[in-house]
């Protein structure tokens, strides 16, 4: 699934940043330099950023401004990183906490 906006009625072309590669649970994914991790995941239709620790329910970004912490993932080994506030970097490893079968 591709959810990127190509041409915007008001803003024009929304091409932006050069492409980099991030690894989400080990799978390579193209992202645009400078965009937050959560936006890159959404662009590929990945909405789940973590699983709740007790019930194992999927959770995803809710506020996109660093308030709700629903988007917290493990980034380059560091736990609880808010992916809506953290920009992608080439080669970054992003893991989904609590993923079933993990």
């Amino acid at each position, binding site marked *: 699934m591709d*959810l990127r906006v190509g041409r915007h009625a008001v803003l024009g072309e929304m091409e932006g940043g050069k492409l980099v590669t991030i690894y989400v649970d080990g799978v390579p994914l193209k992202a645009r330099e400078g965009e937050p991790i959560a936006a890159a995941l959404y662009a590929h239709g990945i*909405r789940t950023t973590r699983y709740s620790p007790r019930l194992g329910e999927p959770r*995803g970004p809710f*506020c996109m*401004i660093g308030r709700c912490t629903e988007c917290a993932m493990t980034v380059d080994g560091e736990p609880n990183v808010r992916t809506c506030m953290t920009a992608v970097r080439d080669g970054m490893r992003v893991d989904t906490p609590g993923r079933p079968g993990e």
Partner: protein
Amino acid sequence: MNLPLEHTALAVVGAGPAGLCAAVEAARSGVPVVVLDENERAGGQLFKQVHRFFGSRRHGAGKRGYEIADDLIAECLRAGVDIRLGSSVIAFFPEGELMVDGPGGVYLVRPQAVVIATGASEKTIAFPGWTLPGIMGAGAAQTLVNVHGVLPGKRVLIAGAGNVGLIVSYQLLQAGADVVGIVEASHGVSGYEVHLDRVRREGVPIYPGHRIISARGRDGLEAVVVKDLRGGRTVLFEADSLCMAVGMSPMAELAAMRGCRMVFREELGGFLPWHDEKMRAGLQGVYVAGDAAGVEEASVAMEEGRMSGISAAEEMGSMKKRQAAARRAAVSRRLADLRRGPYGEARMAAKCSLYCA
């Protein structure tokens, strides 16, 4: 722990319309000003807004939100304001120091005065399934689309037919999403007619008197069950995105932490720091402005920002009493003009209940 300590005259927390206007007013009268904002861009909510604003020419009517923001930022820079981005204020101690988490690490700022202009946060409502991925705040969807160029989904259902719900619907349409409907629990539409007309013209159905019962999906949102409050009939919407535009509440934890008295005003979004007409929050050198002082709109936020900047400049001795009084009177007149109409008057009354004798 010994953190670096910096002294400054005025510190403004938040670089939205309120904070930027506060900074401009104070800086122009000669006060050194530092503005701190946790975002990578200044402008607050404004830079997410691609629609033309309403209101008077003075408040940038006819301009798009991000254009208004660019003008304000330029004014600040001309006035010598030090705008620091990527800088979260994580504490405001009762002794008056701010703790800042900035690009270079954590440090303390001891200002003579502080304007808290931290904006608002989105409310939500809970129902079975409300935590499913794909459900987010309308402001979050707006950030995704207008700032990052990514759609929250292909088929979007909007909850709430106030201005935010209507505007975000239209912006999602502009970006190429299919807005399958706008559900609203109350029986009327509280958003402006102009915004309503635009979504209607695009053929988006509006469902007043409908309440969300539950959300369904396995790994993320697939459908939303909605109930018609009159007939009792349930309607199923297939949607991969549900955007909640059910109001905002002032975000003023920093004021509470500093020791300001918090009061509850439903018309202004909930708990807010008590303040007077000069935007003083009851403690020496503490001011509030904009949505953090009660959720209203950008033009009001700008005027309240100006008011707080004038008051701070006066109390620091950079502006003469008479000049400050004259400028405040002009701002008050413009605020009264902005708080018109049924909703405006309710907000005016709520504000007045704080300080009118």
